[in-house]
């Protein structure tokens, strides 16, 4: 008898089991991280308590967690749209910056001019969407018409976008009254979202929630959503059905970039209230992980987005307990590693241990 271990793709796991596996992965990751924390001489339990306390322990932590989740979830919603047609848009970061740039451009006109908020904020939102979409247009066109790998182009354009915003805040858009700091002038009240509660949470929270609801509807109940599904699963069948695969790819990519741009606008009007060169703590990259873990489903993106917001805030809380912040990052890292590397893996595949008679094992090795 020969025994072989084979990897098999699973069918769709029932939701309850999927949640169970992921929860288990989080716990295992926390335990593994805890061992590391303990090994460096700090109390793992204190750290764990701090993370929980700092992310969900009361109205202030919860509001901070939700505030952190807004940009993550908004970008990830867009990332998920591109991923659905197998376009690997890694450019969320750059599209986020360009969205912030577009929104600021409108703000610079309408803010000091005293446009009412009900006009200015939607205009900024639209500008954010257009700027983010425009930043995705070039990679989308290169990919759909010329087969250029979009992973490379979107990634490269991230650096261009960050440098462009830096150029603006060091140069033409620098606040003359800002004592030479590389910031744009502060947004007036008509260009900012109202705060909710005692933390950083703001009414921009409705943006990802509304966007997710629209996406759920669009994906399931429109021709475009149907085309996305078919193109994503089988481009040959899409062509056979007369679907224009190129334009479907292009529009998916534009929506994807546009959502990241919207996230940039929301972050400026909601939290930062000015344009600077450090808008994002790698939100665009984290969004990729969120979209993937959420299996590209909009509602799941919201939930996973909140969990990631919690991880971010938990990291801050750890440092307040006298434990080095780097260890907080280590904990985040191990949890992520287990969730992605193990939890996600086992929801997609299973190991089968097969014992086979020697003969058939030999013959399968010849083919």
């Amino acid at each position, binding site marked *: 008898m020969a025994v072989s271990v084979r990897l098999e793709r699973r069918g769709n796991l029932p939701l309850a089991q999927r949640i169970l596996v992921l929860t288990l992965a989080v716990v295992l990751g926390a335990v593994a991280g805890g061992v590391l924390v303990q090994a460096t001489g700090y109390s793992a339990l204190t750290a764990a308590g701090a993370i929980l306390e700092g992310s969900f322990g009361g109205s202030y932590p919860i509001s901070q967690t939700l505030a952190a989740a807004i940009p993550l979830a908004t970008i990830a919603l867009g990332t998920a749209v591109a991923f659905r047609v197998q376009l690997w848009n890694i450019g969320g970061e750059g599209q986020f910056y360009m969205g912030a740039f577009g929104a600021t451009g409108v703000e610079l006109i309408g803010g000091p001019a005293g446009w009412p908020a009900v006009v200015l904020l939607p205009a900024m939102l639209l500008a954010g969407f257009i700027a983010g979409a425009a930043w995705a247009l070039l990679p989308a066109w290169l990919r759909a018409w010329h087969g250029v790998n979009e992973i490379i182009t979107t990634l490269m354009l991230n650096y261009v976008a960050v440098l462009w915003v830096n150029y603006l805040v060091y140069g033409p858009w620098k606040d003359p009254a800002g004592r030479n700091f590389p910031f744009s002038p502060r947004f007036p009240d008509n260009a900012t979202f109202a705060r909710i509660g005692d933390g950083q949470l703001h009414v921009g929270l409705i943006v990802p929630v509304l966007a997710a609801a629209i996406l759920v509807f669009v994906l399931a109940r429109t021709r*475009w959503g149907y085309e996305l599904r*078919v193109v994503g*699963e*089988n481009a*040959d069948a899409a062509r056979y*059905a007369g679907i224009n695969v190129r334009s479907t790819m292009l529009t998916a990519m534009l929506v994807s970039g546009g959502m990241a741009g919207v996230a940039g606008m929301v972050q400026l009007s909601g939290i930062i209230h000015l344009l600077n060169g450090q808008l994002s703590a790698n939100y665009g990259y984290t969004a990729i992980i969120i979209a993937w873990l959420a299996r590209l489903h909009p509602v799941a993106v919201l939930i996973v987005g909140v969990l990631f917001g919690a991880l971010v805030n938990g990291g801050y809380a750890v440092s307040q307990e006298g434990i080095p912040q780097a260890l907080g990052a280590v904990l985040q890292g191990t949890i992520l590693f287990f969730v992605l590397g193990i939890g996600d893996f086992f929801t997609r595949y299973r190991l089968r241990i097969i014992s086979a008679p020697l003969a058939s094992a030999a013959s399968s090795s*010849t*083919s």
Partner: protein
Amino acid sequence: MVGIDKAFPGVVANLGVDFAARWGEVHALLGENGAGKTTLMSILAGLYRPDAGEISIDGESVAFHAPRDAIRHGVGMVYQHYRLVASQTVAENLLLGLPGVPFRLNAGKFIRQATELGQRYHLRIDPSRPVWQLSVGEQQRVEILKTLQRGAKILILDEPTAVLTPQESEDLMRTLRQIAAEGRTVIFISHKLEEVRSVADRVTVLRGGSVVANGLAIGALSTRDMARLMVGDDMPSTRLNEQRVASTQPRLVLDDVSALNARGLTALKRIHLEVGVGEILGIAGVAGNGQHELAQVVAGLRFPTHGQVRLDGRDVTGVGARSMTRRGVAHIPEDRMGEGLVGNLPLADNAVLKSYDRPPIAWGPFLILQRVLQFAQLLLERFNIRGARPDSATRLLSGGQLQRFLLAREMALNPRVIVAVHPTRGLDVAATQQVQEWLVRARDTSASVLLISEDLDEVMQLSDRIAVLYEGEIVGTMPAAGANREQLGLMMAGAHHAAVGVA
């Protein structure tokens, strides 16, 4: 090889096959697609193991467990799909897997060796060029060199000329003669009669997995004899439909149409075809002679480089697949899972693949989910597909169910033209019968059917007229009633270029 049996799940590929080749000869193995030629030779080359039977070389019984066992006994095969590393040079590919290559490569020596070998057999090739730069014909030369360098005394080639230009084919024939002249054996799988005639000493013919002619000398056979052996001379089986007189009213016309294949080579050469109202036109031919491109042109998936496609007298050249669908052209593609259906989506989504974009399924940019489900349910019921629901995952259906479902969807378009490519391939008897009945019934309600099939029996049973496609040209058109297998076989194998009968 004596008494070779080999079965794959669901198919018997070889049954009691005896085969013998001599040293110093070119031996042709002739047969239609699916006659079991490649399987038999893959057994000889050690890729498959026979279920029964025995192989001996020079009177000594051998058993191969893997291709390298066969190589050790001097048997090497050049497959239809080359096994080369595209990013490496010719010399590096020749080295790959060669026994006795030292860890420190002496590349110069191997390059010299390869060049010498190439010169000896007229296999001109520059060893320092990377494989991806080579043409298909050159890659084939590398494969042959590779096999020879491993010491093959018995060289097997699987349809080597299928991918070659006429000039390259001629060069290859010369090389094969040279190899045989040195006392080696060349076994040559083909279904082209003329080239078998020009290069082989003897021929073995397989039909339906069994030998019908064992090692006959080529000189004793006419081309006609070979064609008859290959396709059989039994009477055409009972026709499934009553013969129709071709309608005078053409519905689909291909006028002087040329088209390229996916590799950018000419696949259709200025063909002229007409399919009448209420007529089934069968396209006979060995796979790879332009059938795929022909179906794509009619379905609007491939644009002709020359000529015109007309539907009911209107020019529809280059209008695209969606427009063709709306004009009533249904398409049953050869690869039902790869092209006709989306395996990972539920049946409901697949049901509306051709109709999601317009009422009643769509309302403006929106889909009416309820109608999608109703439509899927309707297809399942009307075409009697049991055990499946609109939300079932499509990939879980059996082959027969999939084809029924696909056909149901296409029939629901009330098509005026149906392009059916290998519509019964891989189906069991019941499903085959049902699919064929549907096609005939559609014809009876005045649809025009373009039936492309590699199963000659099917073409003869279903068609009203038959056209033969060979190397991208229509080499003849005839009423199905008067057609005989021998004549068709000759034309399919390229031995007969004159059009027969009235088009």
